[in-house]
Structures are given as structure tokens and as C-alpha cells.
């Protein structure tokens, strides 16, 4: 079911853009269509799948690690940290590019450092075991880092006018994705995903209780740290070339848990990955068709899709136990 949904969305993404390609054109492309599809749209669709899967998995992992149904890269400040790091990496990359002729890896590398630093700050400033303080600290750090991103952005614009597209980092866009970024994202994404899937039952344990995890042979502190690093890598890989994309990591695991009526990560994580990829393809499609002749920022779409779900979760209340 989900895979079929994903497939249909891939087709829609290949058809829609500044030039409309009919379905027959996608299936039997002419010379021109082939160029548009293989050079622009297919890499963008593949990138959307990777980014969506990464964010959904990072969200499911963070919700388990923090035992907090609202945790996800965007809410916990990880995403803003990643994007701030990406900009720093970009600045260094500008010089590196003139030295070595390539610099693509600087952005995810610094994105990862930024993601981990922001997450660490949020953990330091929140009270242990209190889900609300984690979210509030995450929002505070996010706002601060977004301000830094704007400052750095303005500065970079005066130095390198060609970097206009980095302004989009604040809003999220898939238009910067191409074959090289897809390759880098895949390389950064596949190892942590394999490890997370392998560890999904351990994630259940730390979601249940630290003592229960310990008695079952899993060191909760060490495992949490490891999983946070993995979700930091996924967030940095996903957002380095797209900018901030919110709420995919938040809503996707919840939708799957509601569908399955179970929170077993061994089932939730792979399905959330497929749904996350589908949501991002849908958002990309909508971002192109919603207002004709322009592309709407992706975060606008994911927020419109995600916030009602967030409101539902807040209203439902019992989802958060008896913490307040």
C-alpha cells in the first residue's frame, strides 16, 4: 500500500515542474524529456526519498531516545544546528573550493557538528525526564540559531552574491539536489539506517525504561548517545543540501504507530521511512503546483501537513501520560 503510494508520487514528481511531462512522456521519454527527467527530476525525486526517510527515521529515533512523543530534529534544535553548521561549512567550502576544486563534503560534515552541538545544548538546558522543558529548550535554541543563520547569510551575500540560493536554507528546498548530492546523501545515510534498523529492539528497551534496558543487557546512557549521533548524521545528511524541513520527523512515526496500533520500532522505523519519503515527495509535488509558475518553500507545505497532526497529539493529551 505505502509502496504503491510512493511509486505514484515518484511518477507525479517526474511529471510536474516548469515543463509538464505527460505520463507517456515519463514512461517513453523523448530526447528532451529524458534530459529533464534524468538530470533534474529523477535526482530530485531520489533525493526527496532519502531526505524524507532520513527525517522520519531521525524523528522515530529521537522520540525513543528522549522518551518524548514531540521530539524530532526540527523541534529539538538539531535541524537548525545542522543548517547553521552547513552555512559555516559553506563559508569554509568557498575557500576550499578555490584550493581543492571540490567542497561538497564540507557542508554535511559541518552540518553534523552543528546538529550535535545544538542537540547537546538543548539537552544541557532541559530538565532530565521533563518532555516540556526539552521542547522549550529546543525552540529557544532553534530561534537563536536561525538568527545566526540570517546574520551569516546576510554576510555571505555581501561576499558571494552567487550564493543567493543559500537563503533558501531557512525555508527548505529540494531544487539544489542533483546526482552528486544524492550520492553523498546515500553514502552518509545507508550505514546509520542499517545500524538503527539492527538496533530497533534496543530502541524499544530504552523507550520502556532505563533499568529494564540495563537488566536486558543494554547500557542506556551509551546506547542513547550512539543513537543521538546516528540521528545527527541522518539530520545533517538530509538537511545539508535542502535547508530546514520541519515536522516530517515528528508526524511520520506517529501516523505509523496509530496505523499499526503498536510502537514496536522494528515495524515502525521501516514503515516510517517509506511514509516519510512519500510525504516529502507529496510536499515537493504540492510546492510546485500550489502557486502556478513558482515553487513554494518545502517547510511551508510540511508545516501545513504537520501542524494539524501536532495539534491533534497535544489535544489528545493522554499521549503524553500524566506528566502535566
Amino acid at each position, binding site marked *: 500500500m505505502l509502496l504503491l503510494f510512493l511509486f505514484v508520487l515518484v511518477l507525479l514528481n517526474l511529471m510536474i515542474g516548469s515543463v509538464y511531462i505527460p505520463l507517456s512522456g515519463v514512461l517513453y521519454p523523448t530526447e528532451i524529456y529524458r534530459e529533464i527527467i534524468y538530470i533534474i527530476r529523477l535526482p530530485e525525486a531520489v533525493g526527496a526519498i532519502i531526505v524524507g526517510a532520513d527525517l522520519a527515521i531521525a524523528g522515530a529515533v529521537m*522520540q*525513543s531516545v528522549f*522518551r*518524548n*512523543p514531540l521530539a524530532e530534529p526540527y523541534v529539538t534544535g538539531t535541524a537548525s544546528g545542522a543548517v547553521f553548521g552547513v552555512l559555516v561549512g559553506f563559508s569554509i567550502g568557498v575557500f576550499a573550493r578555490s584550493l581543492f576544486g571540490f567542497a561538497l563534503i564540507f557542508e554535511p560534515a559541518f552540518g553534523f557538528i552543528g546538529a550535535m552541538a545544538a542537540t547537546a545544548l538543548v539537552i544541557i538546558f532541559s530538565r532530565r525526564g521533563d*518532555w516540556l522543558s526539552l521542547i522549550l529548550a529546543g525552540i529557544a535554541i532553534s530561534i537563536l540559531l536561525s538568527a545566526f543563520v540570517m546574520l551569516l547569510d546576510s554576510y555571505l551575500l555581501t561576499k558571494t552574491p552567487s550564493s543567493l540560493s543559500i537563503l533558501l536554507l531557512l525555508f527548505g528546498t529540494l531544487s539544489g539536489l542533483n546526482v552528486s548530492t544524492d550520492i553523498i546523501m546515500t553514502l552518509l545515510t545507508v550505514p546509520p539506517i542499517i545500524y538503527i534498523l539492527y538496533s530497533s*529492539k534496543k530502541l*524499544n*528497551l530504552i*523507550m*520502556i*525504561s*532505563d*533499568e*529494564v534496558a*540495563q*537488566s*536486558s*543487557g*543494554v*547500557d542506556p546512557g551509551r546506547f542513547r548517545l550512539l543513537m543521538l549521533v546516528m540521528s545527527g548524521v541522518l539530520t545533517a545528511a538530509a538537511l545539508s543540501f535542502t535547508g530546514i524541513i520541519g515536522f516530517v520527523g515528528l508526524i511520520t512515526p506517529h501516523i505509523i*504507530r*496509530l496505523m499499526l*496500533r*503498536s*510502537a*514496536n520500532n522494528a515495524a515502525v522505523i521501516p514503515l516510517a521511512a517509506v511514509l516519510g519519503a512519500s510525504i516529502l515527495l507529496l510536499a515537493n509535488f504540492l510546492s510546485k503546483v500550489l502557486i502556478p509558475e513558482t515553487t513554494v518553500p518545502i517547510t511551508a507545505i510540511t508545516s501545513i501537513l504537520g501542524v494539524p497532526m501536532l495539534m491533534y497529539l497535544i489535544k489528545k493529551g*493522554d*499521549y*503524553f*501520560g*500524566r*506528566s502535566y
Partner: protein
Amino acid sequence: MADHIKLNDFSAGYRSEEILRKINAEIPKPGITTILGQNGSGKTTMLRSLIKYTAVKGGSITMAGKDLGRIPLNELPNYVAYAPAWLEDQMGFTALNIVSSARISGRWITEDEAAEVLEYLHIGYLAQKRFSELSSGQMKMVLIARALASRAPTVMLDEPTSGLDISNKRRIMKMINMLAERKLSVVVATHDLDIALISDWIIAIKNGGIISSGARNEVISSALLSDLYDTNVRVVKLDNSRFTCVMDE
């Protein structure tokens, strides 16, 4: 009576705080051992020490003749299983999810095995229910099922009857007896005297130290309980095998 678990001059706590001081005790197998004491006396810390979840300040613990400090964490489920007093789930685990998070000899148990354990304890009907929607008695039963599912020779239960009405308490006590009948060592940390009275062995803790330990009939006395709880308690003999405790003037 083989000494399954032995604490030798064992001291432990959290960070710089020392809670248990120079504990010497034996937990035999099989049978029910109750760690008895007031709230805050160190009962839970003692259970947590047996799963290596405290900072060791001195002495040692041996399990089946091996030094606990040298048992790798991933082999711990082969020795002990632990059911916490309470847990809060906000994600929507089912009872079956909770039970199937147990491990036996290096592997995860299957959902079928988890369902079997629930059936064995007569709570199969809870399998697909959300854990967060269960009553506190049902939650405790599911946590006991989880501990049993790991097939460890020692099952540790933290406050398994706290906050329960009398019929749920009786069901939990029946479960404890079922575990004991399987030749397991059941270690219960509790302030509930009713559990103490169905136990084989008692370890009485006050302010982080042992004030008495041994076979139930030798340890339980009005004087000991009064000292343990800092209030007058009288042990009343009902018949040859049954006691009850009453508050005294």
C-alpha cells in the same frame, strides 16, 4: 540451599552518595526472598545493584559463583530479570510489545513466546491492549510476565503490590508463587508485610544497612518489625503456617 547470589561487604549508591553500606547477604535459589524496609531504606538500590545500575563503592556481588563486576552487561539477562515498580509509556506500546522486549540467552524473544507467557499467567487477554491504558494492577502483571519471559534464574520485582486493591494484590501474590514453583529465585523489594509473610527468606534493611536476614520464621518478629518501621508492630500467629501483622499501640 545453594547460594545463588551473594553480597560481600557490598556498598553502593549514585554518584558521590553512598546508600547501601557494607551489605553482607545471601539470596538463595529457589524460593522467595523479600527485601523489606521503609521507603528510602535502600531496597530499590539493592535491586538496582543486582543489575549493575548503581555506582559500586566497595565490596562485591557474586552470581552463580561469578563476580558480577566481571559479567559483561550483554550476558546479564542470563542471570537476572527485573520488573520495575512502575513505568510510563507515552508511545503506545501494547502489552505484547512490552513482554516481547525481553531477551533470552542473547536473542530477543518472539511474539509467540511472549504471548505464551501472558497465557501462562492467565493475562493473555491483555496482549493487544495499550500498556498506558491498563490499570496499575494489570501493568504490574505485564511487567512480571516480561521478567518471567526472559527465563532468567532470578526474577527481581520492585514493589509489585504497591497501590493495588486487595484482589489485585492477591493475583500478584499468586503470580509470585507461580514463579517460585518454577524453581526460580524471586527477589521482591517491598514494604508490604503480606509479601514478607509468604516469603522463604527475609533481608531487612534500614538506612542502607542490614538489621536482620535469614529464614522468614527466624527473622520475622514483633521486635524486628517495630525496629524496622520505627513504630509498634505485632506479629500475630493465625495457625501453624500463617502470620499476620497488626499495628500496636
